[in-house]
């Protein structure tokens, strides 16, 4: 075999790979839904990363009169201490997203490991693990979250830990059923025939083929964790002194913002969660449609 031929082949190959990456990107932006999802996600990510430079005031000092409605100097008004609500909101984005992303990361880690283990070993391991998962899925999560939060020190990390520990079961079910169906696929049999070890088949053939589905579920985990953290904060659990969307609502409730008619304090965090949830849902739906289309081919 002469070298020239192989080199030319490689150059062509790079071109093929580049065009493939381009195709994925184009597909992502061709659908309005995924474009919207990516845009929303990008918006909040920028807010989270650059928040401290964008925020007009230090959210913890009084920067205007108490309970003042939106004005030119305070676009989102001020709260009961005269702090700027917009700055609270912008700074709070980072913590809320951080909780969402880290909980999603840890529960995906647990869920994928448990699902792979159950699907890989099967038999009793599977039976025991799935019974346990069923139990966690049936027991209502919120009261359990409340108890755990009440017992652990009130920090954001505790909240992340608790939410991670309780959010993974659904992911593990999804992963397990994926393992069971992928196990029957021809290419897995082909790898077995080639002499590949079971462990390598699991990580090279089975796991990569379910990454899109795992990704979709990670998206759901992110939004679920943000909402759950807000709920816990609303009950005064977790670190109520941290600045995030949940604690904004907690203080608004404690100080009777609704009765004071201070809608400008209440609307931003809730609406932000809603819009983020909508964007992430659309992204997830768009991706799952792309998977279905791919399978149809």
């Amino acid at each position, binding site marked *: 075999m002469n070298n020239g031929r192989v080199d030319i082949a490689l150059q062509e190959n790079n071109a093929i790979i580049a065009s493939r990456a381009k195709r994925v990107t184009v597909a992502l932006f061709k659908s309005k839904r995924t474009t919207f999802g990516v845009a929303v996600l990008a918006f909040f990510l920028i807010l989270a990363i650059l928040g401290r430079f964008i925020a007009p005031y230090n959210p913890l000092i009084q920067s205007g009169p108490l309970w003042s409605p939106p004005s030119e100097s305070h676009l989102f008004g001020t709260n009961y201490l005269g702090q700027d609500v917009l700055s609270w909101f912008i700074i709070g984005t980072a913590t809320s997203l951080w909780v969402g992303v880290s909980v999603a990361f840890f529960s995906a880690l647990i869920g994928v490991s448990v699902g792979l283990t159950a699907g890989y070993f099967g038999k009793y391991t599977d039976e025991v693990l799935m019974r346990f998962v069923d139990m966690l899925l049936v027991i*209502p999560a919120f009261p359990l979250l409340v108890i755990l939060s009440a017992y652990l020190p009130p920090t954001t990390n505790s909240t992340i830990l608790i939410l991670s520990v309780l959010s993974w079961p659904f992911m593990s079910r999804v992963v397990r059923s994926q393992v069971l169906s992928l196990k029957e696929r021809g290419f897995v049999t082909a790898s077995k025939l080639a002499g590949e070890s079971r462990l390598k088949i699991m990580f090279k053939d089975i796991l990569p083929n379910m990454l899109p589905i795992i990704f979709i579920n990670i998206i759901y985990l992110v939004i679920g964790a943000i909402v759950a953290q807000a709920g816990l904060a609303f009950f005064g659990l977790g670190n109520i002194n941290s600045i995030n969307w949940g604690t904004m609502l907690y203080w*608004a409730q404690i100080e009777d913002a609704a009765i004071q*008619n201070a809608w400008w304090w209440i609307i931003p965090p809730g609406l932000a969660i809603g819009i983020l949830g909508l964007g992430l849902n659309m992204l997830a739906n768009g991706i799952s449609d792309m998977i279905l289309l791919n399978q149809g081919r």
Partner: protein
Amino acid sequence: MITRRYLIRRLINVLIIAYGAITINFILPRIIPGNPVMTNLFAGGGGQIGNPVVIARLTQEFGLNNPNLFYQYSLYLTQLIHGNLGISFYYYPQTVYSVIMERLPWTLLLAGSGTLIAAGSGILVGIYLAWKKGTIRDSFFSSVGMMISSIPYFWIGMIFLILFAVDITIFPVAHAVTPGVTYHNIFSYMGDILYHAFLPITTLAVALLPIYALQMRNTMVTVMHEDFMKTAIAKGLPDSVVKMRYAARNAVLPVTTHVGLSLGYVVAGALMIEYLFAYPGVGYTLFIAIQNEDYPLMQGIFLIISLMVIAANFLVDILYTYLDPRVNLR
């Protein structure tokens, strides 16, 4: 079809899950570092924790001064069988059980009517959206639905408070009944209850509605693609009849199951909404327990709610299996 064997298997399964919940309830306070129950119990924290009578009774009834966990566990189970969940620190001398039972009816009223209203109207909205599938109206309302279903329940309640109890004072901002009023007859009592429950129930219903509506829409869209739908259309039945009669009927069942299985959300929603409206159900009580470090009460609430949800789940599951053989096309 459903066999006795199947029923027994499900029953064993649900008993294992219930046992799991009971055990989690025992283990949690004991494995968490710092062990707040035990420490607070003896150090004397907030609320009634310092009360020596409470300490003495809890210690004796639950064997807390015996370090043997198996001994504690067996005592815990025995006490549980006798309905003893301990004494509330905050509501002393009331027991946890009596506190919960006093509050539970309010929660059931809220959660029950909220779910029914949300499921009923959600299914109708879902049918409508599936009907209009692909139109601008469908994508608009579906998007709004997706948005609302990720917004925390209590936020919706806060907005309702501003709109209907503060801006225009139609509804009360708190409580289940008007304090200090004597009623002339049962109707005025019921009227007062409904008047107070209206906003909380509406909030819960509005928060849950999109979940059911989207579920119904998606299930119906899937059903409409199935073979028997094509058969029905091929039979020459008008489109509308096919959609309504067949697709809707076949989609309602899975959605009803979903209603049963989503009780976890309902509970979470009800608990938060009660707190928001100072509605004296279990959720509000849970908040009070948290504020006052009343650990026995928190755990009791967790246990009772879990057992109820587990039982409800089981019933829905069995019901579904009974109804499952699909509605025939004739």
